[in-house]
């Protein structure tokens, strides 16, 4: 029997080309995935670009204290969780309802055509979406205020009214991603065994009863799993979306500023990587616990769908 080292060398010699093929991706992941880990330590430093990670002074938990003692800590955490939960719940319910309606469509052509248009927003960048929103909500020129004026209602200065923005962002997010979710759910519905429906029809069930007692219950596992997996990412608040739309509009921070945008500003606007890292570390650790926890639940429901 050969020792392990020898057989490893033999494996590399025998399949060298295959290992060569994986090297670019592996080196890349090593650098951008693993080499980033030590940088997390700067959360405990008074980091300075000149002295770098090795020579910056250690200051214990000061950076964390700075964040958690400010009222913004609670605000951005709450907003991140609030927006993500709403995105998941409203997005799932809307896409599911739409998928059920689509499944009832008779005309294949109409179904394909409308699916194409509903999927379209998914391919737009958030910057483009911010322009679309602006064309609707602009105080002076926007369509919404024009409609309000026609109805003899007062125009609203949308970009200065934080109370509306939770709903606006939820609607926007659902609008952009409903097409993608529709495709997934529709595929799941089409995958349901036809014999269930035939049996139901023989028993004289109406279309609504078929939906209520066959489609929805059989879709529940898929819905649960997709929602739980989304729950794992709940600490990460789509920077792309929020920063493209809100930018640095402080008036709207109370309802829509999230951890990601807060970290971005600490890093790039205020220019304090160590403080930004402290918040980022808090986000990563809680995020990891949530991924791990939700995966455990998914594994309990259906091991095939678990991530790990």
């Amino acid at each position, binding site marked *: 029997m050969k020792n392990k080292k020898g057989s490893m060398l033999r494996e590399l010699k025998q399949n060298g*080309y295959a290992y060569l093929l994986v090297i670019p991706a592996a080196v890349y992941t090593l650098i951008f995935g693993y080499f980033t880990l030590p940088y997390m330590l700067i959360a405990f430093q008074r980091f300075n670009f000149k002295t770098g990670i090795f020579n910056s002074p250690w200051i214990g938990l000061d950076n964390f204290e700075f964040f958690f003692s400010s009222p913004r800590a609670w605000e951005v955490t709450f907003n991140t969780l609030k927006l993500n939960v709403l995105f998941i719940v409203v997005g799932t319910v809307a896409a599911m309802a739409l998928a059920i309606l689509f499944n009832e469509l008779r005309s294949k052509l109409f179904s394909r055509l409308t699916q194409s248009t509903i999927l379209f927003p998914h391919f737009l960048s958030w910057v483009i979406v911010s322009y679309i929103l602006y064309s609707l909500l602009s105080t002076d020129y926007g369509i919404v205020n024009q409609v309000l004026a026609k109805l003899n209602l007062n125009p609203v200065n949308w970009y200065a009214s934080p109370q509306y923005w939770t709903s606006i962002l939820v609607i926007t997010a659902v609008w952009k991603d409903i097409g993608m979710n529709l495709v997934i759910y529709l595929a799941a519905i089409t995958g349901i065994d036809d014999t269930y429906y035939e049996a139901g029809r023989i028993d004289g069930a109406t279309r609504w009863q078929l939906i209520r007692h066959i489609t929805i219950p059989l879709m529940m596992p898929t819905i649960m799993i997709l929602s739980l997996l989304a729950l794992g990412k709940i600490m990460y608040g789509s920077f792309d979306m929020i920063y493209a739309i809100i930018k640095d509009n402080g008036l709207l921070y109370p309802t829509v500023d999230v951890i990601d945008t807060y970290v971005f500003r600490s890093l790039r606007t205020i220019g304090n990587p160590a403080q930004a890292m402290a918040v980022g570390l808090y986000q990563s650790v809680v995020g990891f616990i949530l991924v791990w926890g939700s995966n455990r639940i998914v594994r309990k429901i259906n091991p095939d769908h678990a991530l790990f």
Partner: protein
Amino acid sequence: MNINRSRLFDIANAALIGFVSLLCLVPMLLVLMVSFTSEASIQQHGYQLLPSEFSLDAYKLLLGTSPLYRSYLVSLFVTIVGTLIAVLITGMAGYTLAAKHIRYRNGLAMFFFITMVFNTGLVPWYLINLELGLRNNIWALIVPSLIFNPFNLFLVRNYMSQIPGSLIEAAKIDGANDMFIAFRIYFPLCMPVLATITLFYGIGYWNNWFNAIMLVDNQNLYPLQYLLFKLNSEINMIQQMQSSGVIVSDAVLPQESVKMATAILTIGPVIFFYPFLQRYFIKGLLIGSLKE
């Protein structure tokens, strides 16, 4: 009676779905129409789906000498080069992770997978990029997004592991090595999944402005999306375009329509490739979401 009700439902259902699909289209149409509206009309009536006064001023200004061309080139270069490299290294790694005769393939998969679960976040990512000199150059727009999320890698791996391993054995008997098998046998067989990740990467690069906001200050290197982002927050950029030599007939600078016209030109390629995009996107979603 029952049949009538069922028929009524069909009509109502189709109407509702038609309405939803219009909701997804009309806001984009509004942006398009505003881009063709004269500035005076916007000042007077606001944005309109049917412009009171039609005008091409915005496009005239943009298509004169303007930063738009440079940003278009930057975006095209980044998207094409980035996507090619990303697809190549993802496909190659996918083969190794899928080939059953590779002993350490599961260990390797784990190595990639861990980075997917534990996210170190923005700050380390930023510092690594600075360390690598990825700042204010074209590679800063490409390298940081190559395989930032290994999701695509697993998509390729899963697809490739459905190909029977006996194919590799047969090729090996004929004297082929893994390099040859990957490029000449596996890649042609896996065109659907490779097309899908090409699309994912391509859209990702085209729509990316995050790399630019983080790593690029030089205006010559702004990709389209970032130019567009800046255009909305910095009005002087439009004046700059104006002063770069284009004379528009109107005395008023078509500020509002220029913004919208830039948005339209930015999504141009997406609309052009849309039928292809949509087809492979749906395929990819189905490969990715429904495990066998």
